[in-house]
C-alpha cells in the first residue's frame, strides 16, 4: 500500500489517508497511514491541499485552474489558506499534513517547470519521491534538508491545535515527535536553530546558576577542559580530562607540557617508573619534589591530586595547579578530611 500512496497523487480516494499521514510519527509506514485514515475523513483535509499557483495570477480563492496542485489532485476549488473559518487551525496544518503524506519517503520534492508558466490543470504528478518505495524516516531535523522541509513539522502541531478531541489525544505524541521523527512519541526532537537563540547565549545559560551539572566543563559535552597553571610559568595550558583514564596518563601529559618550564631545567625526562600514584610520587614526577600537583574542586577548595578515585576527581576538578611544594603543605589534612566527609 505504500507504493500507491507515494506515487499516485491522482488517486483521490487515497486522499484522506494520505493526509492523515501527518499523524504518522513512525517512519511513515503505510499501515500507519491507513490505520489512521478513518480519523481524518471527518476533517476533509483534501480541501486544504497545498497549491502552487502563479504568483499574482491567483485569486485568494485559488481558483483551481490557476493552481497547480502539488499532488496532481483535482484542482477544484477547495478551501484555501484564507478561509480560516472552516477548518480553523487545521487549514495550513492540514496542507502540510497532506504533503507529509506524500513525504512518506522523507524525500519528496516538488518541481515547478523552471520559470515558465506552469501547465496548470494538467494534474500531472509534479514530483516523485526519490527512490520510490523506501519510506524512510526523516531522521533528526538536524539535517534540515529541504526534502524534509517544513511540512512535516507543522502538520504535527497543526493537527493538534484545534480543539477537536481527536487531535488533542494525539497532541503530545505529535508535538513531541517534531518532524516526523521515527522516534518514540515521548521524546521531543530538537529542531536545529529553534527556538532562535544564539548558541552563545545557550552556552552562557548552561553555565549559569541553573544547577546544570558542571559535567560539561567549559567546552560542552564530550570534553572536560580544565586549566592547568604552574607557578612560575608564563602562561596556562588546558587539558581535556576526558582524554585520560587515570592519574598516570594525566601526570605524564602534564609532565610533557610543563617540562620546559621547570626552573633551571629543560626537557627533563626519564622520570622514575610509576606504579601507583602517591603524593610523593607526584612530587618526584615534577622534578625533584619541588612541585606538587593540586586541583581546585567544585567547592573552591584546593586539594592534592591523587587522593580520590579518578572518576571522582574528574567530576569535581575545576582546575589544576602545579604549585610549589612549600605551598602545598597545608593541603593534605584538608583533603583527607574532605574525603572522609564525602565518604
Amino acid at each position, binding site marked *: 500500500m505504500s507504493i500507491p500512496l507515494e506515487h499516485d497523487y491522482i488517486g483521490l480516494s487515497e486522499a484522506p489517508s494520505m493526509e492523515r499521514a501527518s499523524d504518522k510519527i513512525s517512519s511513515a509506514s503505510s499501515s500507519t497511514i491507513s490505520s489512521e485514515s478513518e480519523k481524518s475523513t471527518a476533517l476533509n483535509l483534501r480541501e486544504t491541499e497545498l497549491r502552487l499557483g502563479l504568483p499574482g495570477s491567483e485569486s485568494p480563492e485559488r481558483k483551481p485552474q490557476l493552481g497547480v496542485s502539488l499532488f496532481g489532485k483535482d484542482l477544484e476549488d477547495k478551501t484555501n489558506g484564507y478561509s480560516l473559518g472552516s477548518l480553523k487551525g487545521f487549514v*495550513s496544518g492540514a496542507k502540510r499534513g497532506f504533503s507529509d503524506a506524500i513525504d512518506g519517503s522523507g524525500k519528496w520534492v516538488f518541481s515547478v517547470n523552471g520559470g515558465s508558466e506552469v501547465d496548470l490543470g494538467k494534474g500531472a504528478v509534479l514530483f516523485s519521491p526519490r527512490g520510490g518505495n523506501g519510506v524512510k524516516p526523516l531522521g533528526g531535523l538536524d539535517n534540515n534538508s*529541504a526534502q524534509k522541509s517544513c511540512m512535516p513539522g507543522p502538520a504535527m502541531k*497543526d493537527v493538534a491545535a484545534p480543539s477537536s478531541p481527536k487531535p488533542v489525544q494525539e497532541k503530545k505524541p505529535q508535538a513531541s515527535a517534531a518532524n516526523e521523527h521515527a522516534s518514540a512519541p515521548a521524546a521531543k526532537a530538537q529542531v536545529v536553530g529553534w527556538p532562535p537563540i544564539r548558541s552563545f547565549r545557550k552556552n552562557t545559560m548552561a553555565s549559569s546558576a*541553573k544547577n546544570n551539572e558542571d559535567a560539561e566543563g567549559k567546552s560542552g559535552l564530550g570534553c572536560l577542559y580544565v586549566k592547568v597553571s604552574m607557578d612560575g610559568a608564563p602562561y596556562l595550558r*588546558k587539558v581535556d580530562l576526558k582524554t585520560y583514564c587515570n592519574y598516570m596518563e594525566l601526570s605524564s601529559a602534564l609532565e610533557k607540557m610543563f617540562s620546559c618550564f621547570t626552573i633551571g631545567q629543560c626537557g627533563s625526562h626519564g622520570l622514575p617508573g610509576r606504579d601507583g600514584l602517591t603524593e610523593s610520587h607526584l612530587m618526584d614526577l615534577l622534578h625533584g619534589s619541588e612541585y606538587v600537583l593540586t586541583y581546585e574542586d567544585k567547592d*573552591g577548595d584546593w586539594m592534592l591530586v591523587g587522593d580520590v578515585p579518578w572518576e571522582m576527581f574528574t567530576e569535581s576538578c575545576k582546575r589544576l595547579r602545579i604549585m610549589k611544594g612549600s605551598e602545598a603543605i597545608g593541603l593534605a589534612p584538608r583533603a583527607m578530611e574532605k574525603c572522609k566527609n564525602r565518604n
Partner: protein
Amino acid sequence: MGYSFPEEVLEHVLSFIDSDSDRNSVSLVCKSWHDIERWCRRRLFVGNCYAVSPAIAIRRFPELRSVSLKGKPHFADFNLVPHEWGGYAYPWIAAFAEAYPWLEELRLKRMVVSDEALELIAKKFKNFRVLVMYSCEGFSTDGLATIAANCRNLKELDLSESEVDDVSENWLCQFPDSYTSLESLNITSLSSEIRFSGLERLVGRCPNLKTLKLSHSVPLDLLPNLLQKAPQLVELGSGLHTKEVHPDLYSKLAGAFSGCKGLKRLCGLWDVVPSYLPTLYPICFGLTSLNLSDAPIQCPELIKLVSQCQNLQRLWVLDYIEDTGLNALAESCKDLRELRVFPSDPFGQEPNVSLTEQGLVSVSAGCPKLHSVLYFCRRMSNVALSTIARNRPNLTRFRLCIIERFCPDYITLEPLDVGFGAIVEHCKDLKRLSLSGLLTDRVFEYIGSHGKKLEMLSLAFAGDSDLGLHHVLSGCKSLRKLEIRDCPFGDKALLENAAKLETMRSLWMSACQVSYRACKLLGQKMPRLNVEVIAEQGHPDLSPDEYPVEKLYIYRTVSGPRSDMPSFVWTMDKNPALRSS
C-alpha cells in the same frame, strides 16, 4: 567641470556629511563630485563582505580610516550556516594593510578572524584605535596578546559574543605599562581567568576608561577595587557572584557602586546572589540600559530592581520577569525604548514561568516610547497583537518568538495572521519583523501591502505556498534582508521576482522548496547575483534537478562568484554556455 568651485571647499562641506546614504547621493551628482567625495570618505560600511571585493573598495575609496564588515548570514547565529561557510577577514585585512596604513577602526561582525589577521592589524596599522569583533571566531588569546603588545593607541577592544580560543591567561598583561589610552574593553566572551593584577593595573592607569565588560571569571572580591580605580565608568559588565556573603564585601561593593556616579549601563550579573542586588540600588536611577539576560534573578528581586530604574531606556531580561514584573516595568520605566525578553528554558516542554502575551501588552500600553521589541513567549493571540499594534504604532522593530512552532492563537485557535497584520498595518515605520506561530499566506498578503518600510524580515515555519513569498517580494519595497527557513516557498515566487533580489542585500532560504533547476536558472539569468547553493549532503548534480536544495543564499555582488567556498557550497554559473541545462 566648467566652474571654479574649489575642491577644498566642497571637501570641507562634505566633511560634515557622515551618513553613507547621503554620501552616496553626493557621489551621484556629477563626476567631479564623485571624485571629490571618494577621496574624502573616511568610513565604509560593507554589509556583506562578498558583495564587493577588497580591491574594488580600495580602488574607490583610497583614504579610509574606518571600515565595518559583515560576513555570515544572520541565521548563522542559530547554527543554520555550516561551519567553514566563509566570511574570512584575512583577505580584507591583508589588502587594507597595503592600502591603508593609517586605518584606525575595524568593526567585524560574524566573520572568521585568524590570529594571523590580528597580527597584521597589530603590526601594520600604526594608529589603530578601535577593534570590534562581534560574534566572530577563529582567533585565540595569542592574537589578542599581539594586539595588546603593539597597538599603542588602542581605544576600544570589543569581543562581544565572539568565540575566543583561550590559550593563555596572560594576554592582558601584554599591554605595556606605558599604555593608558583604553576607553572601552569588552571581554565578556572570554571564559578564561585573566591575570587579575594585570587587569587592576590596566584599569588603574587608563583614566578615560568608560566601558568595562568583564567575563565570568572575575571574582566579586575584585570588583570593588576595579570600581574604585575607575569611578568614571559609564558601562559595566560584571558578575556578582560569590559563594558566601561577606558583610565586608557587601559594604565595599555598595560603596564602590555608589562611587560610580556616571554609571549608565550595566550587564552581566551571571550567578548573581540576590542578597547582593541591593548594592546596585544607588545606581539604578541613573541607569539607561540594563542587561539581565544572563542573570538568573527571579521575579520579586527583578521587580525591586527594575522599579528603581526610572530612567531605563533599554532592558534585556529573562522571562523570569514574568507578567507581574513586566507590569511593574510598565509602571516604573516610562522612558523605555527597547525590551528584550529571553527564555530561561527554551527547550522545556512546559512553561516554567508565568510569562504570557499579557506582559508585552502591558509594556506596550505603559511605555509610550517603546519601539524595539524582542519577545519569547509560549502563547499569543490575535487580540493581543492587535492591541500591541494599536498601543504602539511607533514600533520599528518587532520580533516575536512563540517557542512552540505553528502555535495558533491560543484563544481562537486560528492562525496569527490577523494579529501580525495589525502590527504591519499600524506600525508604519516598522523596519524589522520576525514572525512565529501558526501563519498562512494571508499574513504575507498583509505584510506585502502594509510593510512598505520593512527592511528585514525573518520567517520560520510559516505560510502555505509560493504566494506567500510572492506577496513579500513584490510588496515590500524597502526590503533588504530576507531570511526564511522551513517555509513552503519554491521556484515560482523566486523566479517571478528575480529582479527584486538585486535590490536587496541578501536572501537566505533553508529547508524550503526551491529546486536546483530554479537555482541554476536564477544564476544564469541574474549575473549580478551570487546564487549559492549549500548542500552538505552531496553535490546537487547528483540528484534530479527538481529536487529542492538544502540551503540557498542569494546576494547581489559586483565581484562575481567568490573563490573561498568550502566543498559544500556552489555558486550557480552565470555563463549558460558552460552548463548543459
